[in-house]
């Protein structure tokens, strides 16, 4: 039937095959990610929103520059303006990252996956790594494209930036990097909360709702939030102009990475302990 003779499972049988490796699990997760349509659509939305919205914002901001106040002109950051569209595109990455794991829970696929790879940490690590890798590539392409399109639209109406200007290359590359950190966070959130709706809601809360609430708070409360809230702190990496009550570029990114590491560690521990 299967054309094989079978020795009873045991040391002898085990000598006939090699142990599964982390590289095997990476390959498997890559196949999983590329073989569902939602991946293609979410990444397309990321690029289109990141570049398209960035272009619209850049054009509008450039036209408004002449009429803006002195302080507005002082804080004019053409690099950050051209990367603004990516702020909305993060939502597509967050949703896709959450779904990477939580759709396995909602469909029951997670049981099949964990029977295939019972060393559960490997599954989470491979998923995060594969999705982070894909997001990094797409994120860098998006941010560089958004930057060049944005500067082309700004030039002639307002001061524009060049990649060689101080801090600009860091900010543009940083936008892709920030997106990558967010990718890992959303995979971890999906593993932690397991239900797609709950995990997506949590990501929206972390990304948009809590920062918006902070805006309504008095300064003494708002300033530490805008300084240290991870998804806001990571924004410091993507701007050239340094505004008050924010961290420097790399410390800001560090805060985000620390937050991701904590959420990831909790997700890892629970994945290992909970019944699947």
């Amino acid at each position, binding site marked *: *039937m*299967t054309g*094989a*003779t*079978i*020795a*009873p*499972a*045991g*040391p002898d*049988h*085990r000598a006939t*095959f*090699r*142990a*599964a*490796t982390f590289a*095997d*699990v990476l*390959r*498997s*997760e890559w*196949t*999983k990610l590329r*073989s*569902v*349509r*939602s991946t293609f659509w979410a990444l397309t939305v990321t690029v289109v929103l990141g570049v398209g919205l960035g272009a619209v914002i850049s054009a509008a901001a450039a036209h408004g520059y002449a009429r803006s106040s002195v302080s507005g002109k002082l804080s004019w950051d053409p690099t950050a303006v051209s990367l603004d569209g990516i702020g909305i595109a993060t939502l597509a990455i967050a949703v896709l990252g959450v779904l990477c794991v939580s*759709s*396995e829970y909602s*469909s*029951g*696929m997670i*049981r*099949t*996956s*964990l*029977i*295939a*790879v*019972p*060393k559960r940490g490997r599954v989470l690590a491979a998923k995060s790594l594969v999705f982070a890798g894909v997001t990094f590539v797409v994120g860098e392409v998006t941010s560089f494209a958004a930057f060049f399109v944005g500067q082309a639209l700004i030039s002639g109406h307002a001061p524009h930036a060049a990649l060689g200007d101080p801090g600009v290359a860091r900010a543009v590359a940083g936008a892709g990097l920030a997106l990558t950190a967010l990718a890992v966070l959303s995979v971890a959130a999906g593993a932690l909360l397991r239900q797609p709706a709950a995990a997506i809601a949590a990501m929206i809360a972390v990304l948009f709702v809590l920062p918006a609430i902070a805006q309504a708070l008095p300064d003494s409360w708002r300033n530490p939030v805008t300084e240290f809230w991870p998804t806001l702190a990571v924004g410091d990496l993507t701007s050239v102009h340094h505004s008050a009550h924010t961290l420097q570029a790399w410390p800001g990114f560090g805060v985000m990475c620390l937050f991701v590491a904590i959420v990831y560690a909790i997700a890892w521990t629970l994945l290992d*302990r909970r*019944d*699947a």
Partner: protein
Amino acid sequence: MIEAHGLVKRYGSAMAVNDLSFSVRPGMVTGFLGPNGAGKTTTMRMILGLDAPTQGSVTVGGRSYRDLPAPMREVGALLDAKALQGGRRARDHLLCLAQSNGIPRSRVDEVLRTAGLEDVARRRAKGFSLGMSQRLGIASALLGDPAVLIFDEPVNGLDPDGIHWVRTLMRALAAEGRTVLVSSHLMSEMALTADHLLVIGKGRLIADTSVDEFVRSSSRQLVHVRSSQAAELAAFCREAGATVTSAGTGPDVIEITGMDSAEVGRLAAAHGIALSELIPVRASLEEAFMELTRDSVEYQAAGAPR
């Protein structure tokens, strides 16, 4: 070889599996039988490392499942045919599973052929019927050419053709020397497929026996008799060592166990008792199973006839 030692699984105060010890041997099909809610699936989930036992341990080939170096090469499992992502093509589903255990790509096409799924290999699994999903699940269990196979209710939802295919496959896998554990809540199904039976009810092991032995020991035979002299006949039968019970349908009907119908007939003739009915009744395997698990059925319709 699967070996369980004192397995216990508690969910809060509910005891799903209670001190279960057994071994499943190679070269035969072992039926894992019990009413719904008896703990079959929970036990299988513990074997496969999905659930951690509250107490006790279970090993496959001498190791706990989570310690297997390449699990799919040693154990093939089908727990739930619908446990897959519908947006993925059948072939990609099998491919990602194969890759996770370093199983070559060529093996994917082999199991697709074995399961008769070549024509739908490029279709997305959400369009699959339950029968096709079962075939896909069985195909994934066969990917690693494993020595141990575990199937949870594999014939559920299959058409007669599919049921026949699964039965033949199980028999063939066992004949190749593999360990095959198949759960079912249908005794009749197990009677056709299994060599050995593990019967559980309310999380406890009720019987660990060969199918032949089970049939022999539990097929209760009784003789149904109707006669106007039933009381007299009953006395003679008791004298001869048989057990007589009233069938409850009237004073002229009795049921005799411990004698076969020929003996009852001879006894009646010898004493000049006229019989209007003499019927040998053989309890079916299904009844024997129900008898055995009667006290351990988790969910029973109120007032169900017993």
